[in-house]
């Protein structure tokens, strides 16, 4: 985890194998396929950070693969692999958005430097996104809402576990409110007067994570101009919330385990042991059992975190809460935008109830926000919702929730020319979820 996902596309087995072996020793997660067609198939189910594509292949050429990949997801970096005779094609590939090309056989230094450069660039982009998200998160804090029996059970559970100082692991799909549950536990605990300090382990680039968590001493590295307290220190007396814990690197897992065991840590560049008293709540949308089996997550850390665990239910399993949540968001966004919208039209509410909400509460929140902004009447109409817009809708074959979700995803993809990044943003799900939905429903780009 925390490593770069690379797909090798080469029709020569020996090249695929030797390149994969080399990259795996660098700690990257590598998949390999023998043709362009297989690459596109693979990309429908998985999101890769880097593609290494041989230009000359039987069937679909490397250039065609490049074009298709860039159409769908312009943010993927594609490196072309080429032989001496194919340099003009490599130049054409660069014009079509390839990041670079490598002449095979390549010098190990050349390959290492190139991959490192791409990883650094992507980490920078991730850092910018993290900073933006941090700002967004600060402006949006909600309390937990729900009257369903499922949510009542969650509330009861929180009441039961909050007073103890035990470590808690919250699981659940993205957008189900794991962070809110963590805050609710903190607010109901004896530590409520102390700070609640969160850290999104998946959003922070690896190079910043250590200093974010442990802090640093002035001069520990080039940008360390002052001493800085890490989140562990800031959480002293309160609760430390480790969101997306499944995303941390193996190195960080080792450090974190040591902190959880000894409650002692060192700032980066520091020699003085620091002590902090905090309760740990961790959350993840990953299957950690699977991650342990695959060797991506430490079993000892899992047992440290999984003292008590519970799952946040997806919105589709507590649909009776949709009206309450939607009304709540409506009130908030009406106030924020200064629009006097009284309520939600019955037909619009029916459509909201029928939809599966793969992005859960966060997707519902975004849908209501959009409806408030674009709505012209005093009540939110079906046309205001991004879920169903008749003019672009593909035919719905049945009224099953799955079919409705399939059609909605297809519509969003079609409207956005199958731009995965943009479509995922609109659906408010991450790209990997969108890829798995595309695969699940076997969605195809047409026209």
């Amino acid at each position: 985890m925390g490593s770069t996902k690379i797909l090798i596309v080469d029709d020569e087995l020996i090249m695929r194998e030797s390149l994969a072996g080399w990259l795996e020793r660098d700690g990257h997660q590598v998949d390999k396929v023998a043709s362009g067609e297989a690459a596109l198939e693979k990309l429908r189910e998985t999101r890769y950070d880097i593609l290494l594509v041989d230009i000359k292949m039987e069937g679909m050429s490397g250039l065609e693969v490049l074009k298709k990949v860039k159409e769908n997801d312009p943010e993927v970096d594609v490196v072309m692999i080429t032989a001496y005779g194919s340099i003009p094609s490599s130049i054409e590939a660069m014009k079509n958005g390839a990041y670079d090309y490598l002449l095979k056989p390549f010098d190990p230094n050349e390959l290492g430097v190139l991959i490192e450069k791409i990883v650094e660039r992507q980490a920078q982009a991730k850092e910018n996104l993290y900073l933006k998200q941090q700002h967004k998160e600060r402006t949006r804090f909600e309390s937990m809402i729900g009257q369903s029996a499922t949510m009542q059970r969650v509330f009861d559970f929180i009441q039961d576990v909050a007073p103890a100082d035990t470590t808690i692991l919250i699981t659940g799909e993205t957008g189900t409110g794991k962070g809110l549950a963590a805050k609710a536990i903190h607010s109901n605990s004896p530590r409520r007067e102390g700070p609640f300090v969160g850290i999104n382990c998946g959003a922070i680039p690896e190079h910043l994570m250590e200093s974010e968590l442990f802090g640093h001493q002035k001069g520990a590295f080039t940008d360390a101009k002052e001493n800085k307290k890490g989140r562990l220190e800031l959480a002293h007396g309160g609760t430390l919330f480790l969101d997306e814990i499944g995303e941390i690197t193996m190195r960080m897992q080792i450090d974190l385990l040591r902190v959880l065991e000894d409650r002692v840590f060192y700032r980066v560049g520091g020699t003085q042991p620091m002590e902090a008293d905090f309760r740990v709540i961790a959350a993840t949308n990953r299957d950690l059992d699977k991650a342990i089996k695959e060797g991506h997550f430490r079993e000892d850390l899992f047992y440290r975190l999984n003292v008590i665990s519970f799952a946040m239910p997806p919105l589709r399993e507590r649909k009776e809460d949709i009206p309450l949540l939607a009304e709540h968001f409506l009130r908030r966004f009406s106030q924020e935008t200064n629009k006097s919208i009284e309520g939600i039209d019955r037909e619009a509410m029916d459509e909201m109830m029928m939809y599966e909400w793969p992005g859960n509460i966060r997707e519902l929140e975004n849908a209501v926000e959009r409806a408030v902004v674009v709505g012209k009447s005093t009540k939110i109409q079906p046309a205001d919702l991004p879920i169903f817009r008749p003019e672009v809708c593909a035919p719905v074959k049945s009224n099953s929730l799955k079919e409705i979700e399939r059609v909605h995803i297809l519509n969003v993809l079609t409207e956005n020319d199958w731009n995965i990044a943009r479509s995922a943003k609109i659906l408010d799900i991450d790209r990997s979820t969108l890829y798995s939905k595309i695969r699940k429903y076997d969605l195809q780009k047409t026209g």
Partner: protein
Amino acid sequence: MDPADAVIVISPVEEIDPELTETVRRAIEEAFGFGTREASLVTDIGFAHDANRGQYHSTPILEKLADAAPGDALKVLAVTREDLFIPILTHVYGEAQLGGRACIVSTNRLGEGLSAAPTTTAYLDRLAKEAVHELGHTFKLLHCKDKTCIMHYCRKITDVDRKSNDLCRYCKIMLGDEVKRIGREAAAAPHG
């Protein structure tokens, strides 16, 4: 195989200066805590020779080495004077089966940037570090970002001189995990 009795076998491909094998032996025992013994398991690597490149393809050598490994060999390290390659790269200093049994190091390019003959301290140091590095991969260790760690991947052989002879604390923990796992696996395996 009982890990307590297991050894790491050092297998010279050609006749090699005993000072070199002694250096490798000491470094391995110190880094991994297992005993070592010398045995020539694969002495003819002609099958891996590529006439066009004038080099030896290391991957098939590893396969043969793993097949030839004796029962008490936890891991096998071959040492050769020949220049090695894998098809996608111009050359390699060594190769290992990640989490597997066999690895190989080549002394062919270890003298780059050194003026003296191949028994100077710097040369021996490079060989020891490369041997431990490749063996580290067989214990599932990956390249480490800590520039002083022996598992750090050096772009140039001269950079090897700057890293230490030791694993960083993270790699030590991960090595410990893997050794424990091997022990558990051996305990669970049917005896006889």
